[in-house]
């Protein structure tokens, strides 16, 4: 094989615009203060740490069956479809972007199948993505937009996640805390030829050297029976060494250049709700364009994995601070393993 490549086609094909019809989040009612969680996990909650994190509390499921990851995902999906006024039977693909372990072991099981069944999207197929940290949302967004724009038989996608944290593992890297993680779910309805929220482009980048910068070492093939390793771990040295804001700015510049835009054309930037320290670095790299909704959501919810972007996007749209035609950049460094930038025209 390998001998049948013709010269590249010069013609550029017209691509259909794909946009966000609706978004929703479903978060547990129960909240835990960060101070409580630090105490519970034996971590030192100093004033310095409190300032660096900038997180007051996080939503956590309290054991109610309605708040399993997949049940919250189903609730978020139903709400998003209702807001979009989309009949579930017209959904062509369900795209899942969770990061935390699910009810059963992925990839043999994936909540997207359950979501498909319970929302009644019986004509769709499902696809889920692994390994991108919070950038998994942008991977899902980019892939879904590509499927809708390139397959004439497909028009509507339901993007969905539900993430529940591991008890005793809400403070990431307790010795030198990086973030505090909460539970939650979100969903987005994408449609070809949607009137707004157009997904213009997504730039994705990964560093294979950092494939294990943030992972759960126990519970699968390498450490099948060591429950003490069933914890999300971060290699803080490699995490700190990764040039997060610089990478995101470089990727944004590339993406904006392809669109014929500059950062000055962008109305605002949405980042992941990791910490105030992380946001300050992003703010500096993006010339103070990070929206205030990020800080507000970070304080009240902490880091909700892939749900950070839908949550911030919803808050932004509800705030009335963006107008039709404004450009919004979503950026996520995926802890240094997978970085992603998406450009949306509101």
């Amino acid at each position: 094989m390998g001998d049948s490549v013709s010269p590249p086609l010069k013609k550029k094909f017209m691509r259909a615009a794909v946009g966000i019809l609706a978004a929703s989040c479903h978060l547990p009612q129960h909240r835990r203060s960060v101070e409580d969680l630090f105490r519970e996990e034996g971590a030192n909650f100093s004033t310095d740490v409190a300032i660096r994190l900038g997180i007051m509390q996080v939503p956590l499921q309290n054991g109610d069956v309605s708040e399993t990851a997949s049940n919250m995902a189903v609730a978020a999906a139903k709400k998003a479809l209702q807001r979009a006024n989309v009949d579930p039977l017209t959904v062509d693909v369900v795209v899942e972007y969770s990061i935390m372990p699910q009810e059963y072991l992925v990839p043999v099981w994936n909540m997207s199948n359950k979501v498909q069944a319970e929302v009644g999207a019986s004509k769709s197929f499902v696809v889920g993505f692994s390994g991108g940290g919070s950038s998994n949302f942008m991977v899902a967004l980019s892939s879904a937009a590509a499927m809708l724009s390139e397959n004439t038989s497909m028009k509507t996608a339901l993007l969905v996640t539900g993430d529940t944290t591991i008890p005793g593992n809400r403070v990431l890297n307790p010795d030198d805390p990086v973030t505090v993680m909460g539970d939650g779910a979100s969903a987005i309805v994408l449609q070809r030829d949607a009137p707004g929220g157009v997904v213009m482009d997504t730039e994705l980048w990964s560093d294979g050297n950092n494939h294990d910068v943030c992972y759960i070492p126990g519970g699968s093939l390498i450490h099948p029976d060591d429950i003490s390793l069933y914890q999300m771990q971060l290699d803080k040295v490699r995490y700190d060494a990764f040039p997060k804001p610089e990478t995101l700015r470089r990727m944004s510049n590339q993406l904006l250049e392809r669109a014929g835009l500059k950062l000055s054309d962008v109305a605002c930037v949405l980042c992941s709700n990791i910490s105030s320290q992380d946001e300050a670095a992003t703010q500096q790299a993006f010339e103070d364009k990070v929206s205030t909704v990020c800080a507000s959501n970070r304080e009240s919810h902490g880091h909700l994995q892939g749900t950070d972007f839908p949550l911030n996007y919803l808050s932004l749209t509800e705030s009335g601070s963006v107008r039709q035609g404004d450009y919004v950049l979503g950026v996520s460094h995926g802890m240094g393993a997978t970085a992603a930038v998406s450009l949306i025209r509101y």
Partner: protein
Amino acid sequence: MNQNIGIFEANYYLPETKKTLSQVFEDEEKPTQTFAADVDFEKDIGIEALHVAKKETAADLCINAAKLTIAKSGIDPKEIDLIIDFTSIPEDYVAPTWSAAGQVQKAIGATRAFATAVNTGGCASYQTTLKVACSLMSANDRYNTALLVAGDKTPEFNHNYFPITVVSDGGSAVILKKNMTKRRILGVEVATVGRLHDMWFIPGIHNRKPEDIGGKYPRWLHVCGDVQRFNKELIPINLFMFRKVMLGVLKQVGKKMEDVSFFVYPTFSAWDLKAFREAFRVPPEKFSTENMHHGHLQETDMVVGYVDALNAGRIKDGDLVMLATNGAGFSWGASLVQH
């Protein structure tokens, strides 16, 4: 989809060590449920031995397959724009937090690539991943070369997937390129029946039962199948769903079933293969069988069946090849490759 995306190269890697079926059945737990089909699971399955990875990890199987395929293709790994891991059983570390895609990227030196993983579809993850990869390549001028890669290593005592099959360890890789004049992927169709989501699953350590701790079998890492639901809910719709995705992809590209020159189908069992062939009236000469002796290799079956048929000279220039499979979740997938 545009851009004439096609299969530039494909290959697979199987560990040298083999284990006989009789040894597998002796070592592993005996199924207690009854299978509706009128067959003897152990005698009629049509697979004699399995490949078993010893020290190699699941990621090693991915990496070995990727390296073999890249070497065969002659491409520079730095040309690769996308790496998509389509492994369908648990990998070295817990998913979806981790996938082998990044480790593959590092090992092969694909410094320009973006690496991710598709974690749905079971054995049909091959088709789901083809759909995603072709769409991403078609939609983005900057994605010209994609590497799809998978590596499956089952826990030592979980090769028996009663009542479906017995599984081997192995890895596979496929390189996709744009502007191909041969081996073009004309279309991909995938369908999912989500209500069957909990019929086939692996519990995970967080669902571990106290009585299983320290036992011979890490049951929380073994597949659990509800055989009664399998009999009642899956078997009756299986061929209908195959028909749906195959006719769906044929319709996408304006072809008919009689235009298909060759079928690549998974090696679940001899009776399953026979049922498929009879249902769709496929003569033996149009059907992949060379791969049967490897045992079932999850999603990698699609690659092994395709490569073995090519190597055996059973797929020729001008042939229209249908690759069709089903998988846990449950999903069915069909793709058409024009040679």
